[in-house]
């Protein structure tokens, strides 16, 4: 099978491109997604191929645009709504949490909304929009929230998101956006939603992560491996609803659990995972959550860098479990 080395950003674009070619009902809505090539170059080349009729630029009117996209999805189209940054998710929370989430169940399956809300979040080289909002979207049933941790995952998950008959929020981590390239299969392929990946198996400790922290966990696992600690990494890929089976099985095997995410700790995804695991597994050590401290994210790099879990944080946490 042929492949090409792509960044996470390029892998997402490739998934969208191939799927738009295959399915004429896919259209994209968003700001600056045309000739400009999208926020952080996230739609490069699509407008040239699909033109104004399928790459539809919008005013700065996120709330209305998301509802517009939801309506379009109820009438035969499969819109990809590009929300420039994840910082704006609270702005469209009502449309996502009280409209999109409810349609399928409340209409008894008669009104389904097959759209993808695509956005990019978290800190990164582009420092303007550092916040992570996935926990807010995880509290209400009916929404699927996806965050890829690598280019290969990014392509396959985006394909499943576009083929889903219900809403998917797809959050692209800015930190990895133009980051390490990976050989991505040229053909279209789907990675199922709701299924975690295990990029590294090990018997001593389970490291649960998604998005940027996948890379953090990989680097930490390599360091810990040298000290004789054998880590298993579980990349959630779908943050909500997360893959309980894979997480629980891994924790049953290792009996140690560390969860790391860039979002705030309080009432976060990590809390849900720890609660789920401790309800089912007798752990040998207290589980550890690594996350942003419960403060707004400051702008000055020296302050901000303190709000993200680091490789050293993970190494330190795991080492502590063995003493």
């Amino acid at each position: 099978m042929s492949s090409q080395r792509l960044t996470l950003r390029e892998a997402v674009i490739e998934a969208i491109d191939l799927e738009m070619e295959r399915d004429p009902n896919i259209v994209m809505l968003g700001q600056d997604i045309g000739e400009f090539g999208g926020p952080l170059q996230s739609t490069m080349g699509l407008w040239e191929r699909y033109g104004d009729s399928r790459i539809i630029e919008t005013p700065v009117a996120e709330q209305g645009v998301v509802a517009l996209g939801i309506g379009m999805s109820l009438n035969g189209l499969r819109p990809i709504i590009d929300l420039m940054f994840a910082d704006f998710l609270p702005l469209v929370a009502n449309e996502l949490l009280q409209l999109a989430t409810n349609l399928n169940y409340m209409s008894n399956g008669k009104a389904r909304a097959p759209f993808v809300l695509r956005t990019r979040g978290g800190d990164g080289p582009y420092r303007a929009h550092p916040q992570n909002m996935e926990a807010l979207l995880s509290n209400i049933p009916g929404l699927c929230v996806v965050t890829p941790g690598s280019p290969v995952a990014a392509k396959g998950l985006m394909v499943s998101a576009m083929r889903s008959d219900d809403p998917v929020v797809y959050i692209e981590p800015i930190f990895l956006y133009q980051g390490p390239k990976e050989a991505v299969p040229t053909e279209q392929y789907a990675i199922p939603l709701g299924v975690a990946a295990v990029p590294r198996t090990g018997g001593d400790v389970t490291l649960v992560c998604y998005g940027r922290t996948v890379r953090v966990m990989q680097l930490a696992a390599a360091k810990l491996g040298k000290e004789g600690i054998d880590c298993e990494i579980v990349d959630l890929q779908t943050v909500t609803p997360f893959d309980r089976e894979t997480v629980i099985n891994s924790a049953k095997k290792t009996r140690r659990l560390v969860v790391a995410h860039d979002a705030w700790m309080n009432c976060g995804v990590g809390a849900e995972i720890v609660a789920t695991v401790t309800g089912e597994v007798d752990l040998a050590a207290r589980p550890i959550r690594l996350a942003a401290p419960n403060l707004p994210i400051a702008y000055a790099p020296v302050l901000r860098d303190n709000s993200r879990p680091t490789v050293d944080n993970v190494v330190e946490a795991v080492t502590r479990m063995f003493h």
Partner: protein
Amino acid sequence: MPKDETSIDALWHMYEGMLVSRMLDEKCFQDFAEWYPAFGEEAVTIGAFGSLVDGDFAVPHYRGSMGVFWLRGMSLEEIIGGLLFRTSSVSLGRLSGLHGGDFEKQILPSVTNVLGPNVSSGTGLAMAERIRGGSGVTVIAFGDGTAALGTLHESVNMAKIYKLPILFVCQNNQYSISSRSSKFHSWDSVASWAAGYNLPSSQIDGNDIMAVRAAANEGIDRARAGGGPTLVDALTFRMGGHLSTDKAQYQSDEERVKWESKDPIKRFEEYLQNSRQISVTEISQVRERVQRNVLETWNKVLASEAVSLANQ
């Protein structure tokens, strides 16, 4: 700030304000990997906020906010400290230099990067002022892109029904990132929208600081006298990209050349010479003094203590 905008003192103050804004932008553009300059928009910011007095509120748009900070009495040390994350930053480095207005000086800081909430909460500042019987006026600036947000329309409507002492100013540089606003507005002027909400409104030449100042004064006077809100659509041009890494290939050479010839600082210098008989020498003396002050302060602040986790 001198009340009579045509007095010599007022003219020099406006000139200095525009220069401070431009020179800080030039320095940031040169030194930072990413910067959002307000090149060409200085007449709007300095003109619109130039008549505020103590007790009034300033709600600046993010682009060009530093000129407004200076007008409201923030020192260059504080402004530059905000840019360089030094301890003279009024937010202690928690906000970016563009967002960190000093609330003690009645500037609403931009504590969110989301466009819109400041326009609406700025409206609330004015609502409280009216209810408490104060005489303060609130000037709220926003971009032409921001103008399409629902929250802005809701606020303009409420400002009218509650007769709030507000001057809304659209800092209309014709672009929202790469999007030409004319393509995304149902009217050719934001003033037409405001007229729909029954506000006195007009589009003005946003590169002529005297015109901006006069329109702003009319609105501010009306607000202070209990006559309710006004909206001014100040038409200007973003001379360059959205941020420093954006080469703005979507702008045409024709419009670029046309608007460069309308550079508000050059135009004001011509006005000073031709209509107020001020000599070129005097003008360049002021220019050199401001340039020296900005650069010397910059270097001084650069050498001062940085913010850190320890000094929060």
